[in-house]
């Protein structure tokens, strides 16, 4: 049950957010959790390393089961708590296949986003190049256009895999939330904007919204011109 679960997390981290949305959707509120700070390097602290030798967040335990990879935790929670909360994996084979496809494309989307917004976190000063950042931005634009296209084809009010909210939305929405936090223009990406507005009102998303985004409603403008 929820009280056998422990989550160590960081605010604004999409992987952490994914797990939190899944826990909300499966009515597993009441889990133990601790908010840690990336800036203070708390993700490399002993309490994290004891559970997650990679020194990363999220770090998630259910009883003795340690599942730190956010996608793994989401699949696990849906599987173990299938009969409670929202059904996150649809039965229809076509919808299910589309859900899986979008989920795994979501990893690429997340990587391309990080390569732009966290360029300076990942690349030491002496190795940074304008040309590299430019190329990363172009790759992100190509990726965003793909997702804009996916949403266009499904029509207004749709979720990523069709008419229902699924695991694809659980794992990809945090990335979409982040792109708008960093200033993406909803005028230039209207379908993504529509999707963002739809999901941000969902109870599980609202309940797990990054606290520091609530404290500072104004985000960054790194992506405003792309």
């Amino acid at each position: 049950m929820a009280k056998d679960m422990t989550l160590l997390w960081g605010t604004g981290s999409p992987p952490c957010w994914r797990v939190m949305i899944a826990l909300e959707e499966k009515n597993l509120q009441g889990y133990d959790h601790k908010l840690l700070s990336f800036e203070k390097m708390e993700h490399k602290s002993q309490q994290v390393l004891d559970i997650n030798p990679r020194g990363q967040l999220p770090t998630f335990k259910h009883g003795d089961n340690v599942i730190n990879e956010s996608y793994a935790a989401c699949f696990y929670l849906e599987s173990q708590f299938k009969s409670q909360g929202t059904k996150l994996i649809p039965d229809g084979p076509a919808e299910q296949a589309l859900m899986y496809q979008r989920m795994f494309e979501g990893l690429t989307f997340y990587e391309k986003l990080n390569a732009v917004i966290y360029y300076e976190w990942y690349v030491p000063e002496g190795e940074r190049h304008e040309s590299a950042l430019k190329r990363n931005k172009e790759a992100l634009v190509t990726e965003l256009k793909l997702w804009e296209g996916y949403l266009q084809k499904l029509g207004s009010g749709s979720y990523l895999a069709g008419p229902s909210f699924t695991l694809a939305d659980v794992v990809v929405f945090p990335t979409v939330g982040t792109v708008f936090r960093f200033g993406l223009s909803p005028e230039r990406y209207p379908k993504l904007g529509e999707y963002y507005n739809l999901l941000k009102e969902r109870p599980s998303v609202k309940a797990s919204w990054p606290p520091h985004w609530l404290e500072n409603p104004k985000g960054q403008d790194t992506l405003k011109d792309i």
Partner: protein
Amino acid sequence: MAKDMTLLWGSGSPPCWRIMIVLEEKNLQGYNQKLLSFEKGEHKSKEVMEINPRGQLPAFKCGDVPLNESCAACFHLECKYKSQGTKLIPDCEDEKAQILQRVFEVNALTEKSSIVLYYNWIVPEGERHDSAVKRNKEALTAELKLWEGYLQKASSGFIVGKDFSLADVIVYPTVAYLFQNGLSEQRYPKLAEYYKGLMNRPSIKASWPPTWKNAPKQETLKDI
């Protein structure tokens, strides 16, 4: 059924190989398939782009539905054909958790090995740094040690538990790829044992990359 499935693939590509292993394990032989060449740029051809707008291999279709991401295809096939062939995701909660964890950790292994293997391909000349090359190699070494540790704890020749699972489907092609590129069997004995131990499993043998059969191994990773 198998004949409603189409796979466009490249020899030696771990993502392509994963799908082929699952198709074998689930007794779905007889699918339509076409071997394409990365070298000739065939992954960017029209027939690939029609299934996979990203212009990547594998390009896989199950009926009308594209499932180009290898893990997506593997999960979907296991789910759809749950009752036939090998059971790749067990019901037992603890094992399932570990299998899922390892499946998604492979991403880290793939990223860290790709940046070493393909550094000069990924990074244009003016942006390359020895410091980056060194750091990437150190990161890959640390990652490999983690996997060596996981296999140290494993007892039956599989990455998790006593049976072949989805974790092996996802992990094995990546491990084999590293040895094909010169990873040292002396320095990574548990990984080598795992690699050799599963080589003759029917699904793996049947889908072994054709271009590896007569080709000498590369040496890129021999000093890692």
